[in-house]
């Protein structure tokens, strides 16, 4: 477990002092994918660099598996860092080394003998799906492939924690998804804890279990990704949620009601696992109603689907009532009746 208490980082320049990270408290469980989101300048990058002391904390405590990172001397810190992998926005590979040798680099640092090194490198290359590219140089790879090398390199010494500093921010959306899939895959296969810094809510939504929202060096909101999506409290969090879900739905509700002036209109809230059931087709089969999806957006998180559908129900009033009863009582989908025709 990673336990952070009162963590603070102050940068002093000649003219002023900037508090990049301000008395931060955070607990991160073993094996979870923890996301930290914030706009640039929020202090999230500084925060993740404090964890392996690429930046020296000004005050506070960082405990990784009960080892107090802030109290380690230079040599102990070096050894501790070998157990904390890190990947970067710009990959930071050595252009002068082949893919193989880049991945072997942390093993050389840890003093692993040559034969063992070769074996481990081969495993890692397979794990990240780069077989056949062993002898290429980084300049010959695409961005996504470079990040795969970065991930293999970070995993070389079997770390317990993987720090991702804007690891997908330099990649296109499709490559981002494949890298995120890889991260989930290694998280499940190897059970390592991943701490992920990003400014894209999409990344959080797709792979994180829990999320912390940072603003001005502080964590303004944190919790399960689904909870934060459902009930964002702070303005900044709402903005991030809108990144994924879009907004302005309510504005054209009036218009919707006017346009579809028949039948009942309900709003369905999908919260977590429930969306796995094929709700709409079940309703259509069980009850004599016609369902017309007017508007909506469903998105997938690590804890299941989340989103809203606005549905028009046409048919016999009794049947409609039964269908609504069914949703309310038998599923975990929340129903909100917008228009009820009696």
């Amino acid at each position, binding site marked *: 477990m990673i336990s952070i208490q009162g963590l603070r980082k102050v940068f002093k320049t000649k003219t002023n002092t900037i508090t990049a990270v301000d008395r931060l408290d955070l607990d991160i469980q073993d094996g979870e994918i923890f996301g930290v989101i914030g706009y640039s300048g929020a202090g999230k990058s500084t925060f993740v660099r404090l964890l*392996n002391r*690429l930046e020296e904390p000004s005050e506070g405590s960082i405990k990784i598996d009960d080892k107090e990172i802030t109290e380690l001397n230079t040599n102990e*810190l*070096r*050894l*501790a*860092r*070998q157990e*904390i992998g*890190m990947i*970067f926005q*710009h990959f*930071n*590979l*050595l*252009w*002068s*080394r082949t893919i193989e040798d880049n991945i072997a*680099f*942390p093993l*050389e*640092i*840890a003093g692993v003998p040559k034969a063992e090194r070769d074996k481990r490198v081969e495993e890692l290359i397979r794990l990240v799906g780069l077989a056949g590219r062993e002898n290429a*140089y*980084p*300049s010959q790879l695409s961005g996504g492939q470079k990040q795969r090398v970065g991930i293999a*390199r970070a995993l070389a*010494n079997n770390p317990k924690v993987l*720090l991702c500093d804007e690891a997908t921010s330099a990649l296109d959306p499709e490559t981002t998804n494949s890298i995120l899939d890889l991260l989930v895959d290694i998280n499940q296969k190897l059970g390592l804890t991943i701490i992920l810094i990003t400014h894209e809510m999409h990344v959080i939504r797709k792979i994180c279990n829990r999320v912390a929202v940072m603003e001005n060096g502080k964590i303004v909101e944190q919790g399960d990704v689904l909870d934060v999506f459902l009930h964002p409290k702070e303005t900044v969090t709402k903005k991030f949620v809108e990144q994924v879900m879009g907004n302005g739905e309510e504005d054209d509700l009036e218009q919707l009601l006017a346009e579809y002036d028949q039948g009942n209109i309900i709003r369905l809230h999908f919260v977590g696992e429930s969306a796995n059931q094929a709700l709409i087709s079940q309703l259509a089969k069980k009850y004599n109603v016609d369902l017309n999806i007017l508007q909506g957006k469903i998105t997938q998180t690590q804890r299941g689907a989340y989103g809203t559908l606005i549905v028009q129900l046409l048919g016999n009033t009794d049947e409609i009532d039964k269908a609504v009863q069914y949703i309310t009582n038998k599923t975990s989908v929340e129903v909100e009746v917008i228009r009820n025709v009696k």
Partner: protein
Amino acid sequence: MLNDSNIKIDDLLEATYETFYMTTIALVGTFILGILLGLLLYLTMKGGIWENKFLNFIVAAIVNVFRAIPFIILILLLFPFTNFLIGSIRGPNAALPALIIGAAPFYGRLVEIALREVDKGVVEAAQSMGAKTRTIIFKVLLPESMPALISGITVTAIALIGYTAMAGAIGAGGLGSYAYYSGFQRRDFDIVFICSVIIVIIVFIFQFIGDFISNKLDKR
């Protein structure tokens, strides 16, 4: 035309060999000393791994002073030091200390520039893996800046060839000496001419080798 030439082939070959000898040995010395100076400048600079204002100031001062002294005067200044080190102030060996001390600060600055060009993120990545400073120097900084280090030493080599000619004029031997004593002073200008041609060829050879190695190493 060639029959009444004053050029003695044996002397010319000897002089060419001496120039090669001085340049090559001095180049090796300059490479080592220059990398040391460049690393010291880079590591002790503001934000460097061994950030040290005082040491950085001292090294920078030494480098600047030796770069400021014209080479022909530097040789004269170093006469006592050379005499102590080599036991003589004449001949190709006697030129080596002055050549190295004259060229290394220049190369040191080029090394510093080359190291500054190394991606800071890569150094940081190595630190995040728990690398020692020694590992960072030998496995990150030097390999990652190698093409620039090689083109730097090529530029320095060409300056060194010029220096050996100057050193030759005050008794170090080599093509400079041959051109000056056997050519210029006896008004045998064909010797001056042929020496110039050979020096130009040597410069071309060094430039070609340098470019070739630098391109070969660059995988960016």
